[in-house]
């Protein structure tokens, strides 16, 4: 089995994932370096979300190896560090749970063992960084799509992540919100956070300038850089 690339945030080697006995991802090789931004593109069923769930440790690997933040996914060391990976999913955008925007961001610190005042400051800072502090008291379900994504990113920032995983972050956003979000992601990437985004529409994220890996049928179809 191939070792993780030294210093890489993500290293997948011959990664394969099966669901219900059918291979839905792989074999796949992938490396994300510290501070790198990467776009994973592909149509529905290409394996994008499966890849994210595998990176989060939510799906078991069938074959190959996967290390995240320098530790094999599922290992004891990985369990201790997995909070270093922030995750923005699609489903929670549609939640009907009564929850305020601040409470959503507080999820990012719910497992942290620090004083309450320190955690409150982390939440405040995260909301400021992602530009959603002004909606802190509002119910999350009442926010616009763009505001929800900023709150979701603030939740991840409160985790003080080294890697952000985003699943279709521009879906259901209007064009200006898509541009705003792309700008925010580029800014966060510029601050040293590695970002892996999966999307089926490259349009607005294309402006990030990040390399693109295209998936089809769970395999890499093409890799390209943006000019």
């Amino acid at each position, binding site marked *: 089995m191939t070792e993780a690339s030294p210093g890489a945030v993500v290293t997948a080697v011959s990664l394969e994932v099966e669901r219900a006995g059918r291979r839905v991802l792989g074999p796949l090789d992938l490396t994300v370096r510290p501070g790198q931004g990467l776009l994973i593109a592909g149509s529905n069923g290409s394996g994008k979300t499966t890849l994210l*769930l595998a990176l*989060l*440790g*939510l799906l078991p690997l069938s074959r190959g190896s996967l290390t995240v933040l320098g530790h094999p996914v599922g290992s004891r060391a990985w369990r201790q560090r*997995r*909070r270093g*990976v*922030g*995750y923005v*999913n699609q*489903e*929670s955008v549609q*939640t009907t*749970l*009564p*929850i*305020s925007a601040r*409470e*959503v961001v*507080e*999820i*990012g*610190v*719910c*497992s*942290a063992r620090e004083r309450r005042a320190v955690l409150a400051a982390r939440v405040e800072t995260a909301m400021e960084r992602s530009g959603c502090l002004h909606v802190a008291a*509002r*119910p999350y379900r009442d926010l616009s799509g763009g505001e929800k994504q900023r709150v979701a990113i603030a*939740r991840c920032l409160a*985790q003080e992540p080294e890697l952000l*995983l985003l699943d279709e972050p521009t879906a259901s956003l209007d064009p200006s919100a898509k541009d705003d979000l792309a700008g925010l992601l580029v800014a966060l990437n510029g601050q040293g956070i590695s970002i892996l985004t999966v999307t089926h529409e490259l349009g607005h994220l294309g402006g990030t300038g990040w390399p693109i890996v295209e998936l089809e049928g769970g395999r890499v179809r093409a890799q390209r850089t943006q000019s």
Partner: protein
Amino acid sequence: MNALSALHYAPIARGLLVLLVAGAVFPLTGVFVLRLNLVTLRFTLMHGTMLGAAIALAVGANQVLLAAAVNVSLVALIALSGRRNGLGAGTLTTFLMVTTIGLAFVVIYRFGVPAKDTLAILWGNLFALTPVDALLTVAFAGATLGFVLPLFGKLRALLFSPEVAFSAGVNSQALQRAILAFVGLTVAFAVRLVGALLLDALLLLPAIVASFYARSTRQLFVLASLVGLTSSVLGFFASLWLDIPASSAVTVVAAALLGAGFLLRRRTS
């Protein structure tokens, strides 16, 4: 009978105390049932409680303890089966629901459990609580608070999204199992108070009313607790004044609060 003077009788005072505690605390579990879509599971647990109570009546054991034991076993079975063979939750809960109620009637028939006692399982008997029942219920309510309050942040994360909770460092699977166990136990205790048919007055209705108005998850839990407490107090005294069963009175008040909440929300939205 004067409603307040009735409180001099130990069984009635005990019933009030237990109902107040349960009315304030059990709706917290109702929030999980509602938000984690455990409504079908709750049906299975209601039937499990009836099996436990039937066995207890047949052998002269404590109904609450046996009902709790049956429900915890059911929850363990569901959690284990779901993990091992991926059996659909709906299929398994339906299977267990019909099996437990079938067994309950077999026990009732074979052991000659009196019809009056059998019916008490269906609509509870608040004033027949023994001191041990009361103590167990209050202790369990305390345990529920001891679970919800310190873990509130993680529970809120789980209600928001199990995947997001996991990514934030929460052991989602363990927490979900603990919630299932608490739901099983809450149903077992609530059935003793208000009966299997009226269980939702303590479990679900307060959580639904709270969800009409809550703007945050914290408010959701607090409001659910307040609505449960209010319906318990009003229902209890209404039952004494009107000489009707306490469980029915609590249920009617809770249903009235739900109706009023729904209408007021429609008017204000």
